[in-house]
């Protein structure tokens, strides 16, 4: 038996023993998701147990080094773990910006002390993190951010405002971009800093979206004192970390939704809602041909995502291609939801009530409009493709 096979057997039996039965079915709603944190309200004892067990093994961050609390698995082992988790339909033990975003940044840019201090509680789901990037007035032009961070000798003093901070009102700590140098060119005077959301002077206010409630907040900093050792990487060079994380985020959003409703393709949803003709074809032929176009594009896009991964594996860097995937994926997703809305006609307009699950479809549809804005607008992605892939000259260079 190969080492991998042995690992697989061990993993399987560990999961069999340790994954509570109630954690072996898909999440039904947001309450089934576990984000951890100091004030975590577990929806069940099983949920708590599942997080504790996975956290103790480091399997909430399987590929991180063991010394920082991670699972210490290699790529192949991590893949096996993923497969085995999928086989028993296990819910994720932890959803976490700490695992997805801050962790990779700390592993690459953090000091040894920072890694030792911050990574283990992330793995165990003890500290919940949020990301402080966007600011009102900055938008796509992130580098023009204004949140001020002054060196006060023994500490930094932070003043300013962030926006679109996901779950700021529920997070324990924030990783944040701040301006530490007003003289330097705009990309250069930015630093990456961490601090406790319970610090004096931090306040948050949730944002309501056109689709309804959202995890987003406005976040205000009023004379917030931050210990100097909580700055990550080099002073004034936080942009490199931000860029590293943005590319990461872009990939996540681009492929985030397959535009299906409860596992059904748009075509199937439409046939169920509007009926088929005697050949089993969607009765509304104009809609049918639009859905066919969206599905053709959807397949070709999925293949492109797949190819992009295969190319990365084969050693061709994907680089700016993530912009293409982000652009196309989000625009496609908007198109798909327009078609889902058309397919369900008047019933797609229902905003409240049981039949519509409180307007699940129209709220999702409205929410997709933000996909091509957040994480870099479609326009910004097209600019990046033009410049970095096609080598077209900068408009301002003329």
């Amino acid at each position, binding site marked *: 038996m190969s080492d991998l096979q042995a690992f697989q057997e061990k993993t399987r039996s560990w999961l069999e023993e340790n994954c509570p039965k109630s954690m072996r079915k898909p999440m039904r709603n947001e309450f089934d998701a576990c984000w951890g944190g100091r004030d975590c309200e577990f929806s069940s004892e099983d949920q708590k147990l599942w997080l504790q067990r996975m956290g103790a093994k480091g399997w909430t961050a399987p590929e991180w080094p063991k010394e920082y609390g991670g699972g210490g698995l290699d790529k192949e082992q991590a893949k096996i773990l993923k497969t085995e988790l999928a086989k028993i339909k296990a819910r994720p033990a932890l959803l976490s910006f700490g695992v997805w975003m801050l962790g990779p940044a700390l592993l690459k840019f953090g000091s040894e002390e920072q890694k030792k201090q911050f990574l283990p509680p992330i793995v165990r789901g003890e500290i919940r993190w949020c990301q402080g990037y966007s600011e009102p007035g900055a938008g796509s032009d992130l580098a023009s951010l204004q949140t001020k961070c002054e060196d006060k000798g023994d500490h930094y003093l932070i003043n300013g405002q962030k926006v679109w901070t996901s779950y700021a009102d529920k997070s324990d700590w924030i990783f944040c971009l701040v301006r530490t140098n007003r003289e330097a060119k705009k990309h250069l005077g930015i630093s990456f800093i961490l601090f406790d959301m319970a610090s004096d002077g931090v306040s948050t206010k949730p944002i309501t979206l056109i689709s309804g409630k959202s995890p987003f907040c406005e976040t205000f900093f009023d004379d917030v004192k931050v210990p100097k050792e909580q700055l990550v990487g080099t002073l004034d060079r936080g942009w490199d970390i931000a860029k590293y994380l943005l590319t990461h985020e872009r990939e996540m959003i681009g492929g985030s939704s397959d535009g299906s409703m409860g596992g059904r393709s748009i075509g199937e949803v439409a046939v169920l809602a509007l009926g088929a003709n005697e050949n089993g074809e969607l009765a509304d032929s104009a809609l049918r041909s639009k859905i066919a176009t969206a599905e053709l594009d959807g397949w070709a896009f999925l293949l492109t995502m797949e190819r992009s991964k295969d190319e990365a594996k084969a050693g061709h860097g994907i680089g700016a291609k993530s912009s293409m995937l982000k652009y196309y994926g989000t625009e496609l997703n*908007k198109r798909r939801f327009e078609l889902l809305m058309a397919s369900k006609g*008047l019933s797609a307009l229902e905003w409240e009530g049981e039949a519509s699950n409180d307007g699940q479809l129209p709220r999702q549809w409205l929410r997709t409009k933000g996909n091509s804005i957040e994480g870099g607008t479609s326009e910004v992605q097209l600019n990046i493709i033009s410049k970095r892939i096609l080598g077209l000259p900068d408009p301002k260079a003329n």
Partner: protein
Amino acid sequence: MALVYTEEHEMLREAAKGFLQEKSPVTEFRSLRDNQDPLGFSRKLWQEMAEMGWAGILIEEQYGGLDFGFTGAALILEEMGRTLCASPFLSSSVIAATALRFGSEETKANWLSKIASGEAVIALALEEGVKHDPVATSMTAEKSGNGYRLNGSKSYVFDGMAADGFLVLARSSGEAGQADGLSLFMVDSKVSGLSSTATKLLDSRNYAALVFDNVEVSGGDLIGSVGAGLTMLEPALNAGRIGLAAEMLGCSDQCFESTTEYLKERKQFGQIIGSFQGLQHRSAHLYSELELVRSAVIKAGQDFEKNPEHSGMIASLAKAKSGEVGILAANEAVQMLGGIGMTDELDAGLYMKRIRAAQELLGDYAFHANRFAKWRGF
């Protein structure tokens, strides 16, 4: 007829614009929504509109109406679209007022002056499925003595929760899918056996789901002749479609104008974003599309005014095109506004929701494109 407004029309538009922007700005709509107003419109404001003659704009003078002509009604709806003003104007004063022209003298006497005075609101009880489809009607109207007995249900009846009466399309013979055998009735909302439930849609207006359980109506409540209900209803449907097109034009124009203003102010990367050619070309394209919608809406209104019985093709053109471009205008507004466009604090989302509903009501793009293609022989 020249495709321009007369001076009389322009005066009406100015008056409507002034009134609506003062009495019913978007903030009014917001507060109705946020207070979960069960009607989604203000009875008081509707009374004021009625006093100005709007409620009876299409009704003959003998019933207390203005008989001003359809173009005027469309202009009012366009201005209502601009400020997202909710009112029973479309249901009662446009659709019902048109359909009741074919009613018995008794029905007209009963209802028309009440519509004109704003005293009564009439809603159209038509849809039974999730797509606009009059011929699919299966609600039954059985002969019962001198009258009829209605059984079945209707959904997505806009202004249905405010209605004192309903225009009801029901099947007196034949089966679902046939254009013949449908009959149109005027039914008092207080009649026994009729029950209604509110449906909350994304545009925060009032919609009802109705159940007819052995509802008895008299022969005098029949509009036009038995089995010819769809023919009777067709002009009213077209009036409603053109009205919705005009409203969507107003919504789209407002979206477009405020987005264009934003493009002139907002800076990114050290530049006014309105100077980016990528956004300029999309704005210029949208401008062009809006001009096409405007032409279609004006023409449809004029044609309807001249000949309500034969305005279906242009009504379909106006409805299809205004819905298509409306969706584009709302999408471009949110995208160009960026993150803040996604917040409930800005108005773009409110327009997006209303346009979504309006383009679906009385037939979406596919429905009208299909009708248009049939008329054009392919």
